């Protein structure tokens, strides 16, 4: 717990320090601060911030003790020891740790408000082939869940459309900003739900032959559509004036290599087929889901494709599998040489990403790899590692300050920065806590 009271009772040497204390007192303490003034509005704050004397867990450049980090103009300007900068707001991080903001590589955060209320669901559109649907358009920057999510250190996430063969185009968003464009993080991917040959759950009572047959038909459908897209692309590149066909237009962008394909495949046989399909069609792709990746880890490694795995906290894909199959999956992939990023695939509890990572770490992935899976590896997979994923000078100011390991539930996060903005450590859930912890009036007899 930050020792604000000691600082308050000490003698501030000058007004600046005193102002800083007040600032921290009002803005930076969230749950520990019971003294929010009525009418006080807590907003993300742009400015110059000097984080002093922290242990920097850079991810890419090792652990730097007793170091300072300067945020200005939305970026990490400088990392070093005993930094100073005029007009910087000082944040004393003695005994604390700074981590790069975590990236959740797949979820529906911002695309749905209340799951059972269909009017609030914006991640699924009608039609089997709808790659032109832009998740970014439908993200609600003011979704209540966003503020709930980021206080756990998740600063960026991939918004996923779902449903159908090509549900749409996913986008990476930073969890700050008031318009989707302000949130947009610079990566888009067209999703392909690879035809599944698995029997999905105990309610699926098709015979073995039917399962096989239907999966072959679905595969054929995919190939047909892809062939059409390839032709479309060829004609267009040759200068043809073709009728408006947005679905093909978008797929042709994938064929042109302008946009990545994110291929969702979970059963081992489907992953295998997807890998082959990628090779045959020569596209740039990322594998997502990959629940049974552990069965064919070497094959995935040889394919050179990166994997977005998760959720980690889920049941094994088969009843005969070992109980911890989903926990151990990312670790097995990493050991085989696959680059792995993690996702929660959740909507309102994306805040649990560090706990998914913690379980993956405990069950074979190791803490270091697990941390990379939610920071630099995710950034690399999305081609954004020059901007995010680690604490390095010049990268975006996405980071948070903790009193310990962010994967551990008992750790408290005291400060959070996204795109260089200092984010108020509050949200509706915290405000409800503050209002009701000592309800007044209390019990009426």
């Amino acid at each position, binding site marked *: 717990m930050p020792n604000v009271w000691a600082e308050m009772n000490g003698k501030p040497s000058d007004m600046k320090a005193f102002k800083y204390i007040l600032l921290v007192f009002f803005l930076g303490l969230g749950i520990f601060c019971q003294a929010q003034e009525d009418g006080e509005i807590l907003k993300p704050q742009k400015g110059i911030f000097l984080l002093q004397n922290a242990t920097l867990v850079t991810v890419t450049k090792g652990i730097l003790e007793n170091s300072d980090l300067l945020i200005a103009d939305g970026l990490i300007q400088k990392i070093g020891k005993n930094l100073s900068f005029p007009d910087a707001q000082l944040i004393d991080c003695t005994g604390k740790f700074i981590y790069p903001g975590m990236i959740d590589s797949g979820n529906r955060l911002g695309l749905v*408000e209340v*799951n059972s209320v269909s009017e609030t669901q914006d991640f*699924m559109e009608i039609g089997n082939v709808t790659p032109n649907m832009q998740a970014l358009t439908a993200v609600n920057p003011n979704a209540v869940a966003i503020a709930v999510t980021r206080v756990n250190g998740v600063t960026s996430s991939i918004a996923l459309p779902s449903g159908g063969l090509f549900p749409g185009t996913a986008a990476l968003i930073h969890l700050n900003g008031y318009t989707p464009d302000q949130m947009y993080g610079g990566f888009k991917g067209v999703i392909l739900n690879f035809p599944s040959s698995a029997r999905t759950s105990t309610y699926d009572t098709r015979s073995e032959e039917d399962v096989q047959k239907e999966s072959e038909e679905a595969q054929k459908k995919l190939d047909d559509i892809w062939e059409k897209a390839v032709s479309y692309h060829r004609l267009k590149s040759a200068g043809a004036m073709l009728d408006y066909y947005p679905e093909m237009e978008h797929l042709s962008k994938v064929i042109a290599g302008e946009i990545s394909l994110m291929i969702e495949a979970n059963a081992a046989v489907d992953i295998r087929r997807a890998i082959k399909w990628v090779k045959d069609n020569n596209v740039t792709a990322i594998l997502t889901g990959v629940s049974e990746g552990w069965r064919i880890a070497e094959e995935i490694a040889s394919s050179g494709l990166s994997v977005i795995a998760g959720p980690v906290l889920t049941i094994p894909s088969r009843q005969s599998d070992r*109980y911890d199959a989903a926990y151990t999956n990312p670790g097995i992939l990493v050991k085989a040489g696959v680059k792995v990023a993690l996702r929660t695939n959740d909507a309102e509890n994306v805040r649990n990403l560090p706990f998914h990572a913690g379980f993956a770490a405990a*069950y074979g992935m190791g803490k270091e790899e697990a941390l990379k899976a939610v920071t630099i590896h995710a950034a690399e997979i999305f081609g954004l590692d020059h901007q995010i994923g680690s604490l390095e000078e010049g990268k975006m100011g996405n980071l948070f300050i903790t009193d310990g390991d962010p994967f551990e539930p008992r750790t408290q996060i005291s400060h959070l920065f996204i795109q260089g903005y200092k984010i108020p450590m509050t949200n509706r859930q915290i405000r409800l*806590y503050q209002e009701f912890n000592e309800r007044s009036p209390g019990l009426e007899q």
Partner: protein
Amino acid sequence: MKHIFNLLCLLLASPFLVVAQNAPNRFVIKNGTVLTITNGTFPKTDVWVENGKIKQIGQDLKVPANITVVDASGKYVMPGIIDAHSHIALEAINEATSPITSEVWMGDVIDPFDIGIYRALAGGVTVTHAMHGSANAIGGQNVTLKLRYGNTDPLALRMQEAPRTIKFALGENPTRVHGRGKNIQPRSRMGVEAVIRNGFEEALQYKKVWEAYETERKQKNSTAVPPVYSLRLETIIDILAGEIIIHCHSYRADEIYMLIKVCREYGIDKIVFSHVNEGFKVAPELAAYTMGASIFSDWWAYKFEVYYSTAYNAAVLTKNGVLTSINSDSGEVIRHLYHEAAKSQRYGGLSDEEALALITINPAKQLGIDAFVGSIEVGKQADLVIFDSHPLSIYAIPQMTFVDGIKYFDRESDELDQRLKINPSELIEPIFLKEYDHNCMQNVDFYFTNFGRNLFEHRH
């Protein structure tokens, strides 16, 4: 069966064990950090189990020479975790055709072959409260289970000492299933209260009729003819008489308040609220008049009635004196309830003791079984879990789980495939990408809008 397999494993070269074997439910766990829950934490301490019960706790215990030794050096020992809201090990969940179904009993549909039982054991859970679903305002009677996986007799999983409990449900689920789905009351929260009151009043009326009959029948040359028998109303009479603990699925603060009022009116004080996402808003009332709240760690926003939830629920309830437990209502979450309890340390700063109590002694009290389980105390049943590190750490991995002193889970030596039954016709197993079963709205999922639209919904 499985016990014999475990015995064989004990005899083989396992790093923890000395070769010496007698009864399967007697052993000593040596030299672990023992988290008793009720009496503090003791490092380098032994726990001696005889005949399935905890015989002694202390340092360097003098035990018989031939007793099995489980070496827990560097490890943590805690009581078996208790899940006060679960649907694993059940063949059916919801008799959703009537808003009051107090007559049905989950003990009729125990499924001892559910792989979910083993997975829960692997997460340190030893006792589950197998409940009726939440489709009805007054649901069916629940059954408290001990996870004795490997027994093929369903009733062998029943915890004999557990008192009777029954499921109630308020809010969106019963109003959706009956009101919006079938045009039967209740359709609104007004109707939920009315249906429950009707049930209570009808039961009282039925009781009068039967008492009159029994009195008349005892007369000489009586020609009293018996009234109609209703197992449903008989059960509600038992609720009113305090013989059954109500566990009520609820979310909104106002509906929780409603039922507290109704129960006070009818003299019912054996009530536990379940899920109770807005419990923090009526914490003082819950503390004063009920047996507490059994909640999720952090689920919210999957329905409108949980939109205004907070993950700080556990902290607010605990700090206001409400007996609080954390449950799973899921075959997936039950596997890491120790982690769910740890979240209360992030959201509200509960202490280690407070957090661990949420999954041990507190749910034991809410199920009326705290005299037998829920803490490591001499005389209690030997439901124990050994962790390789402190259970509230994200990196903790359960190693062994004991129920009544018999080992049902051993991470080192258990086979990968723990199914008890294999279907000879099923060459290609189904693949589960999500836990579809084991939740409150099972069998009635179609009452949710857009069923099938989204694979990833919660249904609770």
